[in-house]
């Protein structure tokens, strides 16, 4: 059990995961040697497409699934073989899993009731937690009378009220519509910063992961591809998979790498680059100029498509043998028309080399 700190709040716990393996059958490997360290008080996101093993990893942390090999410890305590009801870990499930036979008040108080907390104290804490999660006017309703967003808040309150060492969230926002989702992303992030609790969040949405996380791990086929801050993962992806998954469009195989230049489908870039298999040009860091302008690391191209998106315009341009995407912010400049000859200015910060 974690020790309470001087101000009454509980200290956040770290998680360490060592060489975790899990296979559901000989053909279906969910986790293939996962090592991760989550810092105390961190908002940590497991990001990946469906079937990458992220939910399995979350379920193993909760104790709902047993690993084939490997271990998990929370706050330095090894959790091998500890059943879920004896772990100080709570989960917000994707479908919320609110008890249909209990009203909102009794749903939120369930965990405390199971821990034999006095009824009077449960009432007080339910009230306080309901105010934090803004469900205090719904306490007497039944789950079927709640909207999706309300259910989500109740599920969150039901988990948070137990003050667990770690809160696990399994795609809790994926069932909500876009507007509400954005709002709850901000609220959830604020709440985590305020409580200082360790959150492990699972999502397949890279935007959501970047908005909310301190750090994130990208998973693919049961393996951790990369761990880092959203900025590092987005700007310096280590593998082709991470780069594609983070939404990058301009990824090209390096055909030739000389001492001070790189050759790819789009042409030649001068400079001393790290060794790697692929080169990434970030679409929003490239800039377009009208006409053909010679200069350092400038590529001539022709506009094929122009997609106006309000805040920005996305151009699909043909450059050498390659198609590139360039996104330019609409700051009042004239748009380029399709068919127009343009020059792409490749700034050094737009380039990343993928080692893997």
């Amino acid at each position: 059990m974690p020790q309470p700190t001087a101000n009454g709040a509980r200290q956040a716990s770290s998680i360490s995961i060592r060489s975790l393996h899990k296979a559901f059958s000989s053909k279906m490997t969910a986790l293939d040697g996962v090592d991760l360290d989550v810092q105390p008080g961190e908002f940590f996101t497991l990001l990946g497409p469906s079937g990458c093993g992220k939910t399995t990893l979350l379920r193993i942390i909760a104790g709902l699934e047993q690993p084939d090999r490997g271990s998990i410890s929370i706050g330095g305590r090894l959790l091998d073989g500890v059943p879920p009801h004896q772990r100080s870990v709570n989960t917000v499930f994707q479908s919320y899993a609110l008890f249909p036979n209990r009203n909102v008040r009794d749903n939120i108080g369930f965990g405390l009731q199971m821990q034999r907390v006095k009824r009077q104290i449960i009432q007080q804490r339910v009230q306080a937690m309901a105010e934090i999660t803004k469900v205090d006017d719904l306490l007497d309703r039944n789950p079927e009378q709640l909207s999706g967003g309300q259910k989500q808040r109740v599920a969150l309150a039901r988990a948070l009220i137990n003050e667990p060492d770690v809160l696990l969230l399994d795609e809790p926002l994926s069932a909500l519509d876009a507007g509400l989702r954005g709002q709850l992303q901000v609220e959830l992030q604020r709440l985590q910063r305020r409580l200082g609790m360790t959150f492990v969040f699972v999502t397949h949405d890279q935007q959501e992961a970047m908005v909310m996380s301190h750090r994130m791990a990208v998973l693919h086929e049961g393996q951790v591809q990369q761990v880092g801050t959203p900025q590092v993962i987005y700007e310096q992806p280590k593998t082709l998979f991470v780069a594609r998954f983070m939404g990058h469009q301009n990824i090209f195989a390096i055909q030739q790498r000389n001492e001070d230049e790189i050759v790819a489908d789009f042409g030649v870039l001068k400079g001393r680059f790290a060794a790697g298999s692929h080169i990434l040009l970030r679409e929003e860091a490239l800039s377009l100029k009208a006409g053909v302008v010679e200069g350092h690391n400038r590529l001539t191209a022709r506009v094929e498509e122009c997609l106006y998106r309000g805040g920005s315009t996305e151009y699909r341009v043909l450059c050498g043998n390659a198609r590139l995407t360039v996104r330019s912010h609409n700051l009042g400049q004239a748009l380029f028309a399709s068919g127009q000859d343009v020059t792409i200015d490749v700034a050094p910060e737009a380039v990343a080399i993928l080692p893997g």
Partner: protein
Amino acid sequence: MRLFWYATMLFLYAPLAVVVLFSFNAANSPARFAGFSLRWYDRLMTNDALLLAFKNSLILGVSSSLIAVVFGAMLGYGMYRFRHWHLHWLVWLIYLPIVMPDVVYGISEMTFFVAMHRNFGIFEPGLSTMILAHVSFQIPFVALLVHSRLLVLDPLLFEACADLYASPLKRLRYFLIPVLWPALLASFLLAFTLSIDDFVISFFTAGPSSTTLPIYIWSAVRKGITPEVNAVAALIIAAVGIAGLAALVYHHVKFRFSHSVKT
């Protein structure tokens, strides 16, 4: 269309009305109505054999239903819990007794009990063998109701319980039983109804001292329909009617209440 409706209602309720009417018949004969009288109800209350049969029916119904609910619920839960094991053949085996003709079932039970009694000295025909026989045909119904209730639950609810510090025993007490309560009550009532109603299986498994109401009525009617039997039938009709009305009112009130909360 309307005519059809009246005809249906007539066929359904006219015989019941006749039975009730003749239970108040002052005359002894079912052929004519000779004025209002409560004498058959009076006779009823002093007929020890009939009262004993009624008591036997109640004992049989309540105890067999209670046992069947416990075991049937366990079976239903097991079928749900291990649904990934491809137990369709087992499920089929469990449901077979539901469609089995009562006569076949009754004869089988009787043969079994008699054989057991002869060889091992257990299962002497009587109320206990009847309870066993009733439990065995009630269990599939209970299992069916419980299983279908579990199937509509979110499977994550079980995990949510465990995640929220509920030990297996607490999961049973604070989640499974409360959530299954309506299904358990419904299956108890269904099992009870089946038991009270059953004649065929009871007849084959009964002993000399364990006459139930249906068996008593059957033997009474063999000697000719007496207004006394009519009085019993009328009382049962009244009981069922009151129970049905209570259920209707309860549902109406509950529906109104949940509706008013929502808006």
